[in-house]
């Protein structure tokens, strides 16, 4: 499993009813259902991802996140998960409101633009960073709202959303003291667990 998914997997309690926004091939939901009796739905638009979900028995709905979550009632779930999708949304701030309407708690993972390699790339080469967490060129990237670890924490403060937990990860499971101490600089992927209200 991808490193950020593994961390999220550990954070989720048994019997939770979840909504996974951009659930990909359904790896996380399938593992949670198998090991922790977690129920819920994944939203995905990639046909291969959807087929993979169906083969694993993951309930998957073809739904574009930019169309909102209007088909889910207030407090429809215990938890909303969104990994590697925040930066591709038209309005990440509105989505955060929507997520916290549908569930009291959310887990959000996204590439940290302030990661030192990205900073180095931009400052030394003077060009938009391309890395393993941001593999696209500036002209064809789906990532239209890149942000940093600090940016997201700021948005939560501004919205009066409580940060319950925060972590940073890298694409290949390495944990290092430096990323815990200076997450905005050494974290490749930012992961937040947030709660409605203060």
């Amino acid at each position, binding site marked *: 499993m991808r490193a950020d998914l593994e961390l999220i997997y550990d954070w989720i309690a048994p019997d939770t009813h979840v909504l996974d926004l951009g659930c990909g091939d359904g790896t996380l939901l399938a593992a949670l259902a198998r090991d922790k009796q977690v129920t819920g739905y994944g939203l995905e638009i990639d046909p291969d991802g959807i087929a993979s*979900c*169906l083969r694993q028995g993951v309930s998957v709905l073809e739904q574009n996140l930019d169309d909102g979550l209007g088909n889910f009632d207030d407090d429809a779930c215990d938890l909303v998960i969104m990994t590697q999708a925040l930066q591709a949304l038209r309005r990440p701030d509105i989505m955060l409101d929507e997520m916290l309407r549908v569930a009291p708690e959310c887990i959000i993972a996204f590439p940290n633009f302030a990661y030192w390699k990205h900073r180095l790339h931009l400052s030394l080469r003077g060009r938009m960073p391309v890395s393993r967490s941001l593999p696209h060129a500036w002209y064809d990237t789906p990532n239209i709202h890149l942000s940093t670890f600090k940016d997201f924490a700021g948005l939560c403060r501004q919205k009066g959303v409580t940060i319950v937990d925060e972590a940073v990860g890298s694409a290949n499971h390495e944990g290092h003291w430096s990323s815990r101490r200076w997450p905005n600089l050494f974290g490749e992927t930012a992961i937040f667990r947030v709660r409605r209200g203060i």
Partner: protein
Amino acid sequence: MSASFPSDSVGLVTPQTATFESPLALACGKTLERFELVFETYGTLNAERSNAVLICHALSGHHHAAGYHSATDRKPGWWDAYIGPGKAIDTNRFFVISLNNLGGCHGSTGPASVNPATGHPWGPTFPVMTVADWVHSQARLADRLGIERFAAVVGGSLGGMQAMQWSIAYPERVANVATIAATPRLSAQNIAFNEVARQAIRSDPDFFVGWYAEREAIPKLGLKLARMIGHITYLSEHSMGSRFGRDLRSDQLNFGYDVEFQVESYLRHQGDTFSTSFDANTYLLMTKALDYFDPAGEHGGDLAAALAPVECPYLVISFTTDWRFAPARSQELVTALVRAGKRVSYVNVDSSHGHDAFLLPNEQYESVFSSFMQRIDGDLERGHRQKGATR
């Protein structure tokens, strides 16, 4: 002989008839004292009797869903694209049952059958059927075949409504449901189209208020019109446009009312073929069953409440250009299932073929449908292994 059929075909199939002598109470208040159902099966029922899949047919469908009735058949059954060895409903894995519904005109008891009480054909006195009535009759067939629980109940359009009804009426007897290009209820526009079709039939001078068989007449004109209207709603504007455009049959305008545009020729041909192969009373009855279907109706319009008994996972598929039962109708069903806390997957398949897309080959549709069925097959396998281990 089988060498003449494609290798992914179920090959030669023979319909069977099941006769039921105990009465079936119907939603309209009447009772069918006895009835017959014609059906076909493909594949083999496993020892646990757990791999049966029920296929429910649409408005003008019947039991012949896959394979061929004779070596000289030009076309296979109506859903051959998705039923067969290695296909989405893999007959190497599943035992498939496909029947002709009550009230039909392909061998099951219907308006053309003899009413035992009078000794004459039922004609227009054949009871108006509902989707729920059909599902009860299908459950009788399942009993007869020794199937306690279906691995899946599957259907497109009106067939999808039957699959829905199964999960509501017999939740313990369905392990999975797939509803394709269906709707939880007809819209006013849908009912309006059905009513025009019915009026076309009923106003045909050869209809004789349904007693045309006694007069040795067939309301061909009415049936033809009904089919032409229906057919327009099965296609998309795009598919009609790309297929016929404004093409003329000859290279000039004739300033008359004979067939001039290719689309006119096509519709007339469709109508003509249908008018000699389908029964008018059956058509009326099937359109009524469509109009009446509304599980939410008994729950004050609350579809989620109607779906409360559902126990199994759903697969809901719609098609982007279907305007008869538009994607929004499937999404209503999905939202209600989510609201009711049920397991459901949904895909809106990209197709230019309108409502008819559910019958046609399509890579994405095939992938979604196959993946769902493979998971069901996997569940069965796992179930057997666990049973074996505890023995």
